[in-house]
């Protein structure tokens, strides 16, 4: 885990505004899967359209970071930029859709799930590097036990139990967050 990955979104945005290109690299890293998922899972864009939208979203985010009013609202801002560009791509025009949060019916059903997945990914960052690595390789990268075993140099027979153990830790982490948020509402 690098030092930038521990920054909050607001801190990251502030560093990007100050011209820190490493911070920008981390921002892209943090949100690349999210934007990609909205494009290809939420809106089912082709890879070609998704590539265009992906680059355009980050270009706009980079150029317009100054206009973000609440630095901690980076995720909804990026989600909104991405949804709008996906709608543009679907309508087939280069023109921007009017800003209307209620008009994003396409893909809305998937957005809640993608946001949930993003929260799970944030929770993963609190696990050990070994757990992060094995969960990501198995679930997000579809690697087989054999590939994981070869690349991480761990016995293939222990992969399933390691995955199960890491998932339990992840669940505990998320339940801890649930308890904390429920406690804070009491």
């Amino acid at each position, binding site marked *: 885990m690098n030092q930038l990955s521990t920054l909050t979104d607001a801190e990251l945005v502030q560093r990007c505004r100050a011209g820190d290109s490493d911070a920008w690299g981390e921002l892209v890293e943090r949100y690349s*899967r999210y934007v990609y*998922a909205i494009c290809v899972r939420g809106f089912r864009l082709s890879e070609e359209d998704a590539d265009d939208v992906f680059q355009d979203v980050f270009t706009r985010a980079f150029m317009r970071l100054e206009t973000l009013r609440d630095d901690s609202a980076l995720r909804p801002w990026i989600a909104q930029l991405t949804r709008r560009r996906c709608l543009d791509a679907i309508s087939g025009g280069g023109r921007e859709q009017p800003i209307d949060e209620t008009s994003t019916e396409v893909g809305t059903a998937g957005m809640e799930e993608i946001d949930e997945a993003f929260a*799970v990914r944030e929770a993963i960052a609190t696990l050990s590097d070994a757990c992060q690595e094995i*969960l990501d390789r198995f679930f997000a990268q579809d690697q087989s036990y054999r590939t994981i075993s070869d690349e991480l140099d761990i016995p293939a027979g222990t992969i399933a139990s390691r995955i199960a153990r890491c998932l339990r830790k992840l669940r505990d982490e998320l339940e801890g967050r649930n308890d904390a948020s429920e406690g804070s509402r009491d």
Partner: protein
Amino acid sequence: MTRSHDEERLGELLRLLRPAPEAWVRAAQELPFARRTFDEIVARAEADLEFRAALIADLEAALQQQGYEPGRRVVDELRKRLTES
């Protein structure tokens, strides 16, 4: 965004956020450098009319001749900027 998760559900959610293609991520991460190149080209085009004319005539060729290798989006942006000015 917190709710109870069984391990199967966690697996489904983890599968949802697959890595974007590396080249896409790299291109987006290089935007600050692309931006600097862009600003440099625009400033030079404003100061050097011959360079500006060459850019308008054949943008890609003029950029390559001058040793610039900007990505497609910078080229598109530059073309827009040159035709607007």
